[in-house]
């Protein structure tokens, strides 16, 4: 296989918050009955994380599991291991009505860090970022594109979008985080 590269290969920008492309991130879409024991087992095997409840993202030793809809999860894992996890989960869920797909290379991931990380996101999205706490994931839009984001701590957010709009996402994140653009100054 050819050498995998992420959309913007780790591009970064320093404003009043820092915006970095996170590089290669493994991502698996898992659709199925989220109340089934088999799905919970597959989530645990891939990420080490517990099954997330509505709107939650859980963390385990090997990755995260985000609640995307009543029948969909996003598993965030090591990029190099995503294909193996998909193969293993497809096998363990073979008898269930479930779907497991490696979407790593269809996505781009950004990390935004800084005291005002919520403000940067709030400039772009209709989500109430002031009310968000680490452990929650929100699927929404940033400007004109769909995106999902979550806080890993009070000063760090990770944002996922489609790879086809990676440059657009980076540009609007840079614009929102530009020095001099602080909110309430």
């Amino acid at each position, binding site marked *: 296989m050819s050498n995998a590269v992420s959309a913007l290969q780790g591009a970064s920008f320093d404003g009043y918050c820092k915006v970095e492309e996170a590089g290669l991130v493994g991502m698996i879409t898992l659709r199925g009955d989220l109340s089934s024991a088999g799905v919970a087992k597959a989530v645990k095997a891939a990420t080490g994380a517990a099954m997330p409840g*509505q*709107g939650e993202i859980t963390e385990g030793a090997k990755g995260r599991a985000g609640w*995307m*809809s*009543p029948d*969909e999860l996003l598993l965030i894992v090591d990029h190099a291991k995503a294909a193996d996890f998909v193969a293993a989960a497809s096998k363990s869920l073979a008898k269930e009505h479930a779907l497991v797909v490696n979407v790593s290379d269809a996505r781009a991931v950004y990390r935004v860090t800084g005291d005002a990380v919520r403000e940067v996101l709030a400039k772009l999205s*209709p989500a*109430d970022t002031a009310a968000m706490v680490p452990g929650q994931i*929100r*699927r*929404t*839009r940033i400007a004109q594109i*769909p*995106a999902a984001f979550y806080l890993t701590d009070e000063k760090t957010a990770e944002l996922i979008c489609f790879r086809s709009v990676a440059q657009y996402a980076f540009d609007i994140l840079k614009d929102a985080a530009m020095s001099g653009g602080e909110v309430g100054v």
Partner: protein
Amino acid sequence: MLILECPYCGVVADETDLHGGGEAHLKRFGPGSSDEDFQTYLFHRANPKGVHFERWRHVSGCGKWFHAARNTMTLEVYGTYSAQTYEPPKAIINAVIKKHPEWEGYK
């Protein structure tokens, strides 16, 4: 700005996160129906000034369709509910009646 709670995510989303799908609870008339029924199904829609039942999709969120009961004049929202129903649930009807005892009712 219209704000609706998605019954699947529990997310309170404004209309820029959503996509409107028009009047709810239409009965489909397909092959074999009369021309008149088919025409009505395709083209005739209620356009009330007041209580209205609509379909919405949480398009940049979970992607699911759901129903909303709202007031087209005041933008007041009486509630949102699952797409898997042919008519508004009792709780939604009650919420409308509580606000508008004179409401002529659903249908």
